[in-house]
């Protein structure tokens, strides 16, 4: 991690240089509290259907949060929370979550399913963009340690063109892959550190 928690807060605060400095900081804290409701105080989600945000690439988070604010991505509750949030606050939130540490998934591993997922991911060359560690880079999200049910649903949503806002290349990458394969890959990715 490049900075400690204190250093990050200092940087975040620095991004909010304005007359109402304290007010902005208070707003940011309130935003983080509402994010924590689903995504965990440390960005590691324990909520079904809500993804972990910790250690996601900053550009991915920025792009996603903007799309959600625009009403293109994510559940209505996310869209409502982000409505009207300005770009610079989205950048600050993204910087915050990208700097948090992802905790390891301690759910049990189904060895057979894990291996199957690994093989399918390898065949489909997922690591080409998401890195061999599956920790993501730039606009391409971290998959390692992400919630299993979330990953499976997102892959399906991409394939069914229910995830607008990104390049269609992700949907094209999942073209024709059956849902059972998504589930296997989701199991595999979710158990990686």
């Amino acid at each position: 991690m490049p900075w400690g928690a204190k250093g990050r807060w200092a940087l975040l605060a620095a991004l909010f240089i304005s007359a109402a400095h304290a007010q902005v900081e208070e707003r940011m804290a309130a935003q983080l509290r509402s994010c924590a409701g689903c995504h965990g105080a440390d960005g590691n989600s324990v909520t079904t259907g809500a993804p972990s945000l910790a250690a996601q690439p900053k550009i991915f988070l920025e792009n996603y949060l903007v799309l959600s604010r625009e009403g293109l991505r994510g559940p209505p509750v996310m869209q409502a929370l982000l409505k009207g949030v300005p770009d610079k606050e989205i950048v600050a939130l993204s910087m915050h979550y990208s700097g948090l540490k992802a905790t390891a998934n301690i759910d049990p591993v189904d060895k057979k399913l894990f291996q199957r997922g690994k093989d399918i991911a390898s065949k489909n060359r997922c690591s080409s963009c998401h890195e061999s560690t599956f920790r993501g880079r730039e606009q391409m999200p971290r998959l390692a340690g992400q919630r299993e049910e979330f990953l499976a649903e997102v892959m399906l949503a991409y394939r069914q063109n229910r995830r607008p806002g990104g390049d269609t290349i992700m949907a094209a990458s999942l073209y024709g892959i059956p849902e059972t394969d998504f589930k296997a890959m989701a199991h595999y990715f979710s158990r990686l550190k």
Partner: protein
Amino acid sequence: MKKSVFVLAAASVLTLSIQAALAQDKAAAPPPAWQQGRPAALADSKLAPNAGKNTETPASEIPIDKLKLPKGFKAEIWATGMVGGRAMAFSDSGKKIYVGTRGIGRVYEVTDAGDKRTVRVVVDKLTQPSGVAFQGGSLYVMAIDKVLRYDGIEANPAVQPVDLTAKFNLPKEQHHNWKYLAFGPDKKLYVPFGGPCNICEPPSKEYAQLRRYNADGSGMEVIATGIRNTQGFDWHPKTGEIWFTDHGRDWLGDNGPEDELNRIDKAGNFYGFPYCHAKGIPDPDIKKKDACKDVTLPVTTMGPHAAVMGVKFYTGDMFPKDYQGAMFIARKGSWNRSKKFGYDVVSVRPSADGKSAKISPFLTGFMDPKENTFWGRPAYIAQMKDGSLLVSDEQLGAIYRISYGAPKK
């Protein structure tokens, strides 16, 4: 809101989408379009599309001084704040310019007040509304799955759109089916339908072609076929022929097949996709005997993975005489290539017979070849009434103005 509400909402959304998903899961499926054609030699390649930017970039963060132009030309920042802005269409009065986008789903209206510009969002929440065109007082917007017309929008900014989607019979696949739109001299609307993959035999005949429609969506005709992904075209001011750019396929290595600049000298031409690329390269994956037979080859190739975008014939009188009859072409820049290529605007001068063309650098400096990095991606060109050019930068959501004044002696 309380936590329990969040959890409930998230869980119910998930359940609903899973149900919807199960119902749709039976569709027949060709191989994954993206990795198709990727050879074993490139199995470990880390090449991936460049990240776009969804947040606004203020003028103060745009390194405009890095741009380079031929002597006497000048670049300035003309408008900012159009996140993801690409194709531009002038209103009839020329005082407003409409700008389409892909990911962020918006269409912008930029109003030119002479010394400054104001920007507003005309429509949002669309799936890649990259196609914008203006004719007879109406703005036409085309997303992958929607066609909207805004009548009299210059006088009435709040006008509600007429939904023309059903008239245009848009196909199902989305990849390479975001649009570039333009009205021709015949007042018809020209619309491309890309091949829905990197390389494949398209799943049906609706893809990999250029069509034209009457403005109301009636009278559809297929003008040309075998076009992988054209994102820009213009009409030659003298011959009236369409010149269009086309993106070459990926995953055949750093050096090709190169992007293309094509000319439609007669309706019905076949431009080769998926069997034949560039100046006659048979595809190694989608094989056909005599793959390049009866293929209309490009006037010129435009460089490997260059991502050739907008084409604009210069008809103004601001620039020096040798730009008359030349066209400007934006190359948004490569991703499927280890050393970056493009990220510039070139001037292209066709020969008198239209069978060849000479490419010269025009606007450069978006890319740092030593560091193999870029900061901007020029996408489209529009010509202002005074003969200056506007160039959109999709990466930074900005428009730059290029003007000319005789160099001081």
